[in-house]
């Protein structure tokens, strides 16, 4: 088993267009998605959610810009670590994330955690 870091990116603007009801459904579905991973004993670290719009980016000790690092219009909004035998299996788990049913952009970057 290897550890894979899931890095969640969203378009905060797109998220903002969702109604309160939709947001609640997304949150519930996301919770279910994580619980399902945990039930298979594949959740290595439940990770953290990051505060939207918060943050700073340091390019050197003198160059500090406001806001999260925005790659295109998406920014990181959270991460967690799952266990799986292969990256392909990790991809399948990621695909089940409710984010992809919404059509508001966003992505999950999957990276193997160095164990050595």
């Amino acid at each position, binding site marked *: 088993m290897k550890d894979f*870091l899931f890095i969640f990116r969203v378009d905060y603007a797109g998220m903002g267009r969702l109604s309160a009801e939709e947001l609640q459904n997304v949150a519930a579905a996301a919770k279910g998605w994580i619980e399902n991973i945990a039930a298979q004993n594949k959740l290595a670290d439940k990770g*953290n959610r990051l*505060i939207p719009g918060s943050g700073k980016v*340091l390019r050197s000790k003198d160059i500090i810009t406001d806001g999260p690092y925005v790659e295109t219009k998406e920014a*990181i909004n959270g991460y967690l*670590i799952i266990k799986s035998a292969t990256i392909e299996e990790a991809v399948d788990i990621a695909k089940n994330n409710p984010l*992809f049913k919404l059509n508001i952009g966003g992505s999950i*970057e999957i990276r193997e955690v*160095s164990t050595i």
Partner: protein
Amino acid sequence: MKEFLFIYRRDVNNIPKGSPEEMQIETKRWMDWIGSIAAQNKLVNRGNRLEVGGKVVKGLSLVTDGPYAEIKESIGGYSIVKANTIEEACEMAKGCPVFSIGGTVEVREISVM
């Protein structure tokens, strides 16, 4: 005290390769930098280093190779520190050796909810 995530990014294809002696000095600078945060009892989680490759899932049928590739820099690792304010967290991040190889540190407040 709040918790902050440090996300380290660098252009993995453009890291200057020094002599073994220089690389050892670079390694020591990293260890000393994190060591100094730990010595102030402000290190929550050392975090992880990430392997170079990866996948990005953008939709059910849209999976691309490699780390998030919209920019040259990719995430190399992360750590979690604690500080009273984001300014204080940035102050700690200023000593990060990643800048010497043209990298960046993103500092993000972790949601406690």
